[in-house]
C-alpha cells in the first residue's frame, strides 16, 4: 500500500456541502418577530398582565420541553425556539384574566401530550397551542371571561369582587346582531377578546413580515380568509351585509388563526392544492361554528379539525415529475 499523507482531520459527508442561511431557528425567530406587533398592542389594550401571561406561557412551554428531553434522555432541541412560538400563541388565545396555573397546565398539555408524546417538532398531528386552548376550555368560565378593552382594566378583574365583564363582538354576532363596535374598531383592535387576537392590523403587519421573509406563502391565509369573506357576504345575518362581513373578518380570532395557526408547517398540507382545500375547509367550518355552533368562536376548532385531515390532503396535487410520460401527466 502506498504511503498516505494525513495532514488534517477531514470531514467526509454526502453532498451538498453548502446550506441556505434559513434554518428552523431563523424561521421560528421570524414568527416570533411577526407576533411582536400583536403583543405590543395587547399590552396597550389590556395592560401589563398581557405581557406577564405571555411570559409565563413561553417559559412553561420552553421548560416543559426541556424537562421532557431530560427525563426521556432525548437530544435537546429547545434551541430551535419552536416551544417559544407555541408559548406565545397559547397565551394569545387566552383571555387576559386567565389564572397563571391554568396557563401552566395548558402549556403542559400542549407540549407534553400534543407535541412531545408524538415525537416532538414535526411529528405532532394538531397544533399544540390550539390543543392547549381546547384543553383549557375545561374551565369554560375562566376562558370566556372578557373584560373591556383599556389599559389597566385587568388589574381590577383579578380581584374577584368586581368583574367588569363585557360581551365580545363575536358574542353579539352569534345572536345575529351587529356588534356594538364598528368594523374599524375591530380592525384596529380596541375591543375585548383574547390577548393576541383583537388587533387585525397588528396581525396583518405580522403577515406582511412573514410573506416578506418568505416564511409562509399567502395560499392558506388567502383561502381561509377568502372563504369566510365569501360565506359571510352571501349569508349575512346582520345589516348591512358588507359590514357584517368585515366584522367577521376582523372580529374574533380569524386573523390570528389564519395567519399564525393554520399556516403552522407541521400541521398543514404540503402541496398548493392541499393548502387551498385546507384553507377553504377551515373557513367553511369557522363560519358554520360561528353561525350554528353553541360557542361564539369557531376558529380554533375549525383548524383542529382540518389538522386531522392533513394526512389525506397531502395526497392531493403532488407535482408531476419532470419528464413523466404523457399518460401519467394527464392523471
Amino acid at each position, binding site marked *: 500500500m502506498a504511503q*498516505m499523507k494525513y495532514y488534517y482531520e477531514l470531514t467526509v459527508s454526502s453532498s451538498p456541502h453548502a446550506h441556505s442561511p434559513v434554518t428552523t431557528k431563523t424561521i421560528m425567530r421570524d414568527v416570533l418577530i411577526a407576533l411582536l406587533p400583536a403583543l405590543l398592542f395587547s399590552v396597550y389594550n389590556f395592560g401589563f398582565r398581557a405581557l406577564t401571561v405571555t411570559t409565563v406561557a413561553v417559559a412553561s412551554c420552553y421548560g416543559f420541553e426541556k424537562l421532557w428531553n431530560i427525563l426521556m434522555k432525548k437530544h435537546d432541541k429547545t434551541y430551535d425556539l419552536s416551544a417559544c412560538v407555541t408559548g406565545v400563541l397559547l397565551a394569545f388565545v387566552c383571555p387576559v384574566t386567565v389564572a397563571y396555573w391554568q396557563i401552566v397546565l395548558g402549556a403542559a398539555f400542549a407540549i407534553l401530550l400534543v407535541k412531545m408524546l408524538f415525537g416532538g417538532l414535526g411529528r405532532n398531528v394538531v397544533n399544540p397551542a390550539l390543543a392547549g386552548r381546547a384543553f383549557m376550555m375545561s374551565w369554560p368560565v375562566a376562558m370566556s371571561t372578557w373584560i373591556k378593552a383599556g389599559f389597566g382594566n385587568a388589574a381590577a378583574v383579578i380581584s374577584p369582587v368586581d368583574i367588569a365583564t363585557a360581551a365580545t363582538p363575536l358574542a353579539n354576532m352569534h345572536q345575529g346582531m351587529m356588534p356594538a363596535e364598528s368594523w374599524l374598531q375591530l380592525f384596529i383592535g380596541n375591543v375585548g377578546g383574547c390577548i393576541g387576537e383583537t388587533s387585525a392590523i397588528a396581525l396583518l403587519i405580522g403577515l406582511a413580515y412573514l410573506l416578506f421573509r418568505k416564511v409562509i406563502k399567502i395560499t392558506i391565509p388567502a383561502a381561509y380568509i377568502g372563504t369566510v369573506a365569501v360565506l359571510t357576504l352571501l349569508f349575512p345575518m346582520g345589516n348591512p351585509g358588507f359590514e357584517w362581513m368585515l366584522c367577521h373578518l376582523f372580529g374574533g380570532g380569524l386573523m390570528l388563526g389564519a395567519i399564525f395557526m393554520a399556516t403552522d408547517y407541521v400541521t398543514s398540507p404540503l402541496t398548493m392544492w392541499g393548502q387551498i382545500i385546507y384553507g377553504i375547509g377551515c373557513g367553511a367550518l369557522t363560519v358554520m361554528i360561528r353561525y350554528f355552533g353553541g360557542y361564539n368562536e369557531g376558529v380554533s376548532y375549525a383548524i383542529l379539525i382540518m389538522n386531522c385531515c392533513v394526512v389525506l390532503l397531502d395526497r392531493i396535487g403532488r407535482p408531476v415529475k419532470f419528464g413523466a410520460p404523457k399518460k401519467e401527466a394527464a392523471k
Partner: protein
Amino acid sequence: MAFSFFGGVHPKENKHYAEERSVQTFPEPDLLVIPMSQHIGAPCKPLVKKNDIVTRGQKIGDNQGLCVPVHASVSGKVKAVEMRPHTNGSTVMSVVIENDHQDTLCPDIKPRTKEEVDALTPAELCDIIREGGVVGMGGAAFPTHVKLSGAIGKADTIIVNAGECEPYITSDDRLCQEMPEIVVSGLLVAMKILGLKEGHIGIEDNKPKAAAALKNAAVGTGVIVDVLPAKYPQGAEKQLIYAVTGREVPSGGLPVAVGCVVINAATCKAIHDAVYLGMPLIERIVTVSGDILLEPKNLMVPIGTSFNELMEACGVSENPYKVLNGGPMMGTAQYDLSVTTIKACNAITFLGHSNNFYVEDSRCLRCGKCIDACPMKLSPVLMYKAMQSGDVDEMKSINIMDCIECGCCAYTCPACVPLVQGFRSAKVLIRNAAAAAKK
C-alpha cells in the same frame, strides 16, 4: 429563446474568489498518480509496467468495451503500478510516474490541418476522439465517442454546457473567456459528426465576459450562444435541455430521446485538441478555490497531480474542514489529499469550519420548501419518509430513481435533514432489490 426550469435554488455563488484569475500553467509535479478508471465504464488495463520509460501523451492504459484510454501526462519513468486512493473514495489501479521534466513528446502525436480534418468521416472522428481519451469533463465522465456515435442520425440539437452553476467553480468561465474559438472549434467537430448545421452554447448570465467572448467567436459558424438566467442547477443536463429547447427528457431516458446531445465546454476543448493537435486529454483547467484559500487560482493542471500539491500552491488560512472534488453542491468530500486530479475534476474546493451545518437528530418541519426547490418536480419530504420506512416498493413508486442528486432540497431544508444522502442509500436499496429479483 430561454425557458426557466421548475424549482432550483440560488446558493451564494462565491465565484469572486477565482473568476478574475486567468489560467496559469501549474509547474509540473515530480510525481504523478494516474488512475486507470477516470470514466463511466470498464476500467483500463495498464499497458506499462514498473521501470518503463513513458513519453508525454503516450497511451498507458486501455481496455475493450465501454472504455476510453488513459495517457501519460508527463514524460518519465513508471515508478509503480498499484492501487491508490481515488477521488470517488475507493482505491483503484493507478500508474505512478516519476517526472523527468524533459517533456519528451510521444512520437505518435501529429497535428492535423483544417483540410485533413474536413476530409475525415464521422466514424474516423469518433475513433480519434476515443484514442484521445476524451470523456465528459463536467463530472459524470461518460465516454464522449460513445455519446456522439450513439446520437448520429437521432440528434437534431447539440448543446454545449457552459452553465457552470456550481458555486466557486470558474474553470469553464475562464476557458470560454480565454479560448472561446477553441470551444467553438470543438463544437463544430461534434456538429460535423452529428451532421448538424446549428449548435447551441448554454451559459448563465452571471458570466457576461465569457458569453461575449463566445458570441464573438461564434460569428458565422452556425453556433448560437444562449444566455440563461443564473439558477442552480442550470448546468444539470435535463434542466439545460429544457432551458434551451423547452423539451423534457423522459423519466429514465437519455437526452437523445428528445433529439439532444449535451457536451461540456471543457470537453469541446478536449475534442479540439484530440482532432486538430493530435494531443490526448492529459491536462485540464482546475479551479482551486474555497473560503479558506489564501490565493484561489485557475490552473492548467496535468492529470494525476495530487490535491496536496495544489493546496500547497494556493495556501490555506486554516486547517480545511472539507476538501471537495468539485463544488459544494455536488462535489465529493475527500478523506485523503494524496488523491489526484482526474479528467472530470473541474474544481477542488477547500471549505473552512464555518461551513459546518450538521444538525444532530434533524427533524422535518413539513415546510414543503424542498418540493418548491426540486428541479425534477419530486416531493423530497415524502421520498425521505419512504426511505425511512424501508419499503422498497414505496421508494420506487415515489420516484426516488428520478432524483438527480443536485442537492437543492438538502440545501434549502431548514431542519438540515440529509435528504440527498437518504436518496442515495434508497437508490442502493432499490438496485439491490432489483438485482435480487433477477436471480
